[in-house]
């Protein structure tokens, strides 16, 4: 690949007390690609994306977005820079409505003096936009867009979080196990959504334990093991078995797979 990566990380280290979640980890994401990140439970995949999205502060290492070094102190800063993340924990507020959750931190206020001076929210406009985004995801099985998120099923919640990221991501969309709780039909929608985003040129990081999903949508697969990138493999030249073998340590990557 000759293009410059959109997002790179070199030598990331993250420790939680005595646990080293990231151990000199590298990472590259190229324009327009879907990069899958796979690895065992506890391998440090979520830690990696949290370091990128400003949710945790790294102890060492460097992250660059479009060549410029970045160090986000909060998820808000990453978001403002165009990186949108679906966290494994979803980061939804249970008591708030679907609309409120989708627009949290980027609410639309009314035009004119009501919005400018009294900061009144334009609920109608936010509702219409949220409805459109959820329909795209085929999530309109949700009857009432103003219902609190806590009244949704686990899969529906995941759908809301994915719709939120897809709707607002401008440079990179990161999804940490976005289909873990979804049914067959809903997973399919998310995969189609990922392909749709990719068609629009959006680079995507997809963390997943679901090999068929990974092999279906990924352009490259980043295999994460013991807190670092073990290798990057091409799904067209490797089988799911190879991937699982690297991931679990059953097989060591050779020359061809070296990152």
């Amino acid at each position, binding site marked *: 690949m000759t293009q410059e990566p959109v997002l790179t990380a070199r030598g990331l280290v993250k420790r939680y007390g005595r646990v080293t979640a990231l151990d000199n980890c590298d990472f590259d994401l190229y324009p327009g690609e879907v990069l899958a990140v796979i690895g065992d439970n506890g391998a440090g995949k979520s830690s990696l994306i949290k370091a990128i999205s400003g*949710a945790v502060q790294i102890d060492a290492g460097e992250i660059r977005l479009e060549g410029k070094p970045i160090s986000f102190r*909060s*998820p*808000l800063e990453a*978001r403002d820079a165009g990186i949108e*993340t679906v*966290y494994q*924990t*979803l*980061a*939804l*507020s*249970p*008591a*708030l409505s679907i609309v*409120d*959750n989708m627009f*949290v*931190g*980027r*609410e639309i*206020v009314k035009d004119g003096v009501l919005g400018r001076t*009294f*900061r*009144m*929210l334009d609920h109608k406009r936010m509702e219409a936009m949220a409805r459109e985004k959820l329909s795209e995801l085929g999530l*309109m*099985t949700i*009857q009432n867009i103003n219902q609190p998120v*806590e*009244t949704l099923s686990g899969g529906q919640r995941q759908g809301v979080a994915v719709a939120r990221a897809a709707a607002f991501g401008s440079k990179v969309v990161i999804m940490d196990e976005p289909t873990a709780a979804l049914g*067959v*039909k809903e997973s*399919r929608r998310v995969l189609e959504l990922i392909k749709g985003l990719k068609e629009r040129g959006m680079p995507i990081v997809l963390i997943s334990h679901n*090999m*068929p999903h990974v*092999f*279906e949508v990924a352009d490259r697969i980043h295999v994460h093991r013991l807190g670092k990138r073990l290798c990057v493999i091409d799904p067209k030249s490797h*089988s*799911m078995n190879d991937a699982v073998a690297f991931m679990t340590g059953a097989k060591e990557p050779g020359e061809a797979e070296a990152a």
Partner: protein
Amino acid sequence: MTDDSANRGGQDYESSLAESDKSVASFARTHTPIETLQHVLHGNPTLVPVIVLIAATIIFGLVAGERFFSAFNLTLIMQQVSIIGILAAAQTLIILSAGIDLSVAAIMVLMAVIAGKLSVDLGVPAPISVLVALAGGAAAGLMNGLLVTKAKLPPFITTLGTWSIFYALNLWLSGAQSIRSSDIDESAPFLKFFGNVIEIGGARITFGVILMVLVFVALWYMLNKTAWGRHVYAVGDDKEAAELAGIRTDRMLISVYALAGLVCGIAAWASIGRVGSISPQAFYEGNLQSITAVVIGGISLFGGRGSILGALFGALIVGVFQSGLRLAGVDVLWQVFAIGWLIIIAVAIDQWIRKVSV
């Protein structure tokens, strides 16, 4: 599905999706009336205090008769709850953010003493003293907020500490002496602005009561119609999720504490009109009474749930019980007893509503 990549590594399990049922999930399960009630209350947590308030007013009207159910007495109740009501509004902000503030009344009394000292003893123009009290209230709240967020102390401990600090400052500044009503009338009647009364028939509505209602309306608007308010709920509900979703939770909490402090400053001004004099020992139980009003108003102590209007109804419920029981000839000790049960029942109902099965 003809895309072969979907089939790689296993059997196709998705081709039948095309014929899948497109209908929206529907719930065949029927709810018992109790479950339905639970659902309704879950969606409208203010319903309970409203019902209790109306029922209590009717019952005491029947028991104590005309003396209770007169325009004079009903507006008197509103006067009596106005100060605790405003403090409860401030308390609501903190409790919605999953905190608790034991210092609200201490901030209020301290600011009233400062305003009184400035104008009565030092001859500072009353409007300036009022501004100092408002700014001082906000600063005191800011201090609580900084301790909770930057020093990461639990709100309960923080405000337990600042309660003592503010109370001690108040005794020191006042020399434990009250400022007499007549002295205030003479040198700074503006401090008593909220004691002015509008009389309509037997009803006596003080400016302080109107202020209380305005404070609630303004905060209701902020909490429900602005992004700031939505963020208060989000932070109180799940702080970590709110942070990940892009809310600067510390800044948010600091603004909540500072605003609550400002509202305490407003209460300070109103309290001078209500009481007449300025006593450093006044409202010693005000901290806990404000929490009582919030809890009876159906606002969850765990944060993120409930409407601020509930606190207004909660304060009124307490006032109605006290007035009704007194007029029915019940000893004060049983009034306290009844309020105690109200608190416990309110929290029990909150717990029950939160267990709603979805």
